[in-house]
């Protein structure tokens, strides 16, 4: 305050007033209500409408949920129990889930062999650990331990014979020890996961996957032997030709010979017995893991300077994206017999997986192309000026950035793919949503039930898909390197 001012005014307050509390309407819950729910006539109206909708929904659903029946042998029995609750009472009949949960989970997979898909599911997370958190010992340990505990708990709950539980416990303990001692070695679990998983799910002779791996070993051997003399491209080409020749001709014969000499293996389970979420997850996980590399290649092909490669990529992507998935699935079930050599007839699940992979790869290619296009031109030029060749530039500079940008799109494509696995019911496979529910509803005991099975399956799909989208948000935040 200036001197003159102090001299001209007669009174100046020299002590602070004690701070008064804010008015009742400007603090606490009332302030929040006024600001968020009743800030104007439109907002008030919206709030009242919303409250009314919630009221109606709760009034309709609550009694139905409160009168849930968990123990009954048929829908009729359920209705009797509900009717006992009072005149005009409604109630959910979850007894159907209790009765048929194993079909929703495993389809017609033999009951005594449930430990195999459960173990495969647990190993999936062990195999994923190095992919998600490479070299991070704590995260890998946590994931492996959780997967192990989950598998053992589920096996106990399923009443699996003690010998199998003990063997699985030993295996999981060994993996845990590996994750603790050498977290980077865990990547070998990932490498060998596909054949192990195949063996666990479908069973059969041990030798078929082993000889198939031998093809890859042959590829590696030829590559290592030739690479110093003729360089990477020729050696890779020669290795591929050798491996393809191995798979095309002696592979099956050798496998058959070995299994007649040393017949070890697991009980074979035909594809027709697969169903429920076992089928959805098998198709989903396989298609996801193969569509990502294929999608990256297609995106690079579409961005390529080579005219023919570009034209082929564009043609493939646009064709697949232009037709509904159902037509592709029908192609798998009806047309593939025309396009393959006469007499070929391979597994319907495999055919569906191939077509679903193509479908997802075309969508992924477009997502990744968006990421590639979003990178500033300078990144490409900087990589070139460092003297990196095409693949080095892609691997070290371009793709890490492009993939990071495209994470939301990639994950939502994966979610879409997982949801689309329900469509396999139209080619005669037992998906959890329509295939299994049809079987359950065809049973005389459960005829006429509709809300409960759909709510059950929908809730599981929701948990999985919502989990995936949350993980993608976490990943986006973790990988964000720009400054803000």
């Amino acid at each position, binding site marked *: 305050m200036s001197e003159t001012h102090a001299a001209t005014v007669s009174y100046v307050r020299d002590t602070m007033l004690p701070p008064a509390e804010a008015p009742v309407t400007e603090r606490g819950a009332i302030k929040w209500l006024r*600001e*968020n*729910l009743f*800030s104007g006539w439109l*907002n008030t109206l*919206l*709030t009242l409408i*919303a*409250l009314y*909708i*919630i009221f109606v929904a709760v009034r309709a659903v609550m009694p139905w949920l409160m009168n849930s029946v968990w123990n009954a042998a048929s829908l009729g029995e359920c209705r009797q129990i509900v009717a006992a609750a009072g005149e005009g009472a409604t109630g959910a009949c979850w007894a159907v889930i209790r009765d048929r949960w194993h079909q929703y989970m495993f389809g017609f997979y033999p009951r005594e062999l449930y430990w195999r898909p459960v173990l495969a599911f647990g190993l999936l997370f062990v195999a994923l650990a190095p992919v998600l958190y490479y070299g991070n010992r704590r995260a890998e340990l946590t994931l492996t331990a959780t997967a192990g505990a989950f598998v053992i708990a589920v096996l106990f709950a399923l009443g699996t014979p003690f010998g199998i539980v003990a063997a699985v416990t030993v295996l999981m303990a060994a993996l845990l020890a590996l994750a603790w001692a050498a977290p980077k070695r865990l990547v070998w679990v990932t490498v060998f996961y596909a054949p192990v998983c195949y063996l666990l799910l479908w069973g059969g002779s041990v030798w078929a996957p082993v000889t198939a791996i031998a093809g890859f070993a042959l590829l590696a051997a030829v590559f290592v032997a030739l690479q110093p003399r003729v*360089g990477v*491209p*020729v050696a890779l080409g020669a290795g591929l030709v050798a491996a393809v020749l191995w798979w095309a001709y002696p592979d099956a014969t050798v496998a058959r010979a070995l299994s007649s000499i040393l017949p070890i293996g697991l009980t074979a389970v035909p594809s027709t017995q697969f169903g429920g979420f076992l089928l959805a997850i098998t198709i989903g996980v396989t298609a996801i893991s193969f569509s990502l590399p294929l999608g990256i290649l297609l995106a690079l092909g579409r961005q390529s*300077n*080579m*005219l*023919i*490669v570009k034209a*082929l990529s564009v043609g493939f992507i*646009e*064709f697949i*994206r*232009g*037709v*509904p*998935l*159902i*037509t592709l699935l*029908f*192609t798998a079930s*009806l*047309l593939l*017999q*025309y*396009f*393959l*050599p*006469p007499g070929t007839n391979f597994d319907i699940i495999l055919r569906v997986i191939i077509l679903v992979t193509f479908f997802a790869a075309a969508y992924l290619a477009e997502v990744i192309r968006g990421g590639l296009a979003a990178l500033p031109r300078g990144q490409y030029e900087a990589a070139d000026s460092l003297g990196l060749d095409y693949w080095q530039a892609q691997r070290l500079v371009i793709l890490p950035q492009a993939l990071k940008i495209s994470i939301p799109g990639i994950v939502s494509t994966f*979610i879409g793919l997982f*949801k*689309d696995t*329900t*469509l396999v*019911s*139209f080619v005669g496979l037992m998906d959890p*949503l*329509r295939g299994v*529910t049809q079987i359950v509803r065809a049973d005389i005991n459960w005829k*006429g039930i*509709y*809300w409960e099975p*759909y709510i059950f*399956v*929908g809730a599981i*799909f*929701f948990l999985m*898909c*919502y989990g995936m*989208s949350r993980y993608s948000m976490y990943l986006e935040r973790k990988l964000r390197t720009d400054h803000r």
Partner: protein
Amino acid sequence: MALAPDAPKDSFRLSMLIYDTRFRAMTIQVIVLILFGLAVAWLLNNTVQNLAAKGKTFNYSFLWVRAGYDIEQTLIPYTNDSTHFRALLVGLTNTLVVALVGCIGATILGVIVGVLRLSKNWLVARIMTVYVEIFRNIPLLLWILIIYVPISEIAPAPSAFRVTEEMQAAGQAPAASKILFDTVAVTNRGIYAPLPLFSRPLGSVDLGPVSLNLTFLSIVAVLGASILAYRALRARARAVQEATGVRPVTWWKSLMILVLPTALLLAAMGLHLEIPELTRFNFTGGILLQHAFTALTLALILYTGAFIAEIVRAGILAVSKGQTEAAYALGLRPNRTMSLIILPQALRVIIPPLISQYLNLTKNTSLGIAVSYLDLRGTLGGITLNQTGRELECMLLMMLIYLTISLIISAVMNVYNRSVRLKER
């Protein structure tokens, strides 16, 4: 000082095809082309062999054979004496009508939900979030089934709507009654809804192969003229505003210009709603909506609407806050800010993903298979395929048609996208 040796002579060696970047691209492309050609030849050869082994030929003459099956929902004249090609067209129109209704409905729902999700009202925003998350994370097939199964199994038979004289005497109500002011009947055969009809239609003119519906044409002509007049009025108002700074009051004039002529025309032609009435066994009059159609369309609208809501929300959030603040600083009111500043910029972000949602919706109409809706896949790829046994021809034709629809939609929407895109100079 020795001179640098001459640059090595450019003599061509075979290894340069792989190691010289000038030639490598060529080599790769030639190899790819050869492999592609071999693959195509292999597939074609297999197909020819397989067709020969099954004693089949590849031709489309079956399209002109009598179809022999009935289709419940036909938008163009069709009987079971029509050809398979006619059945294909019926299926195509059924696909397109679901796609069209679905796209319009999903856009309206999506825009409303997307805007409400950004609302300051906590409760409304939460409810919309729950809706979006639930519908996005559960397969579309479930929504189709969960709508279709209850309405087709719970809905009463038409006879339940009957009121007999004994019941009237006893003062009993019928087992079921029509909803929405006694106009819509939900039965197990379908939903009977009122149909707008004209008591004095203008008829139609036959012009050789096509017949022109004069009633429809006159409505379109009058509506078009009203819109032109409305735009002229707007232009005059703007001119007056430019000249004098005062904008003349136009809202009642434009309302009259837009509504009155069409309303008068409709009244002159005698527009009324034909309400379905219960006759001896069934409802007559009005329009019958198949449950399959209702379930498919409703599920598509709800499912795609959730995706569009997210797109709209992201689009509005993408316009930076500075734009709003700048508009307020210029003295624009909130609604003018929305329509003049935010929406035009948000549209540029919204339209490309919106196009792909429209494409997805159109392709997802093929899920009508779950409720036996006879769309393109149900006729050409379903009954026709099974009756004639021509899998290869039917599937290829069906894929081609879907591909064409997709390409047309994306072409049209791309033209629109180009017209709203930021003009860069």
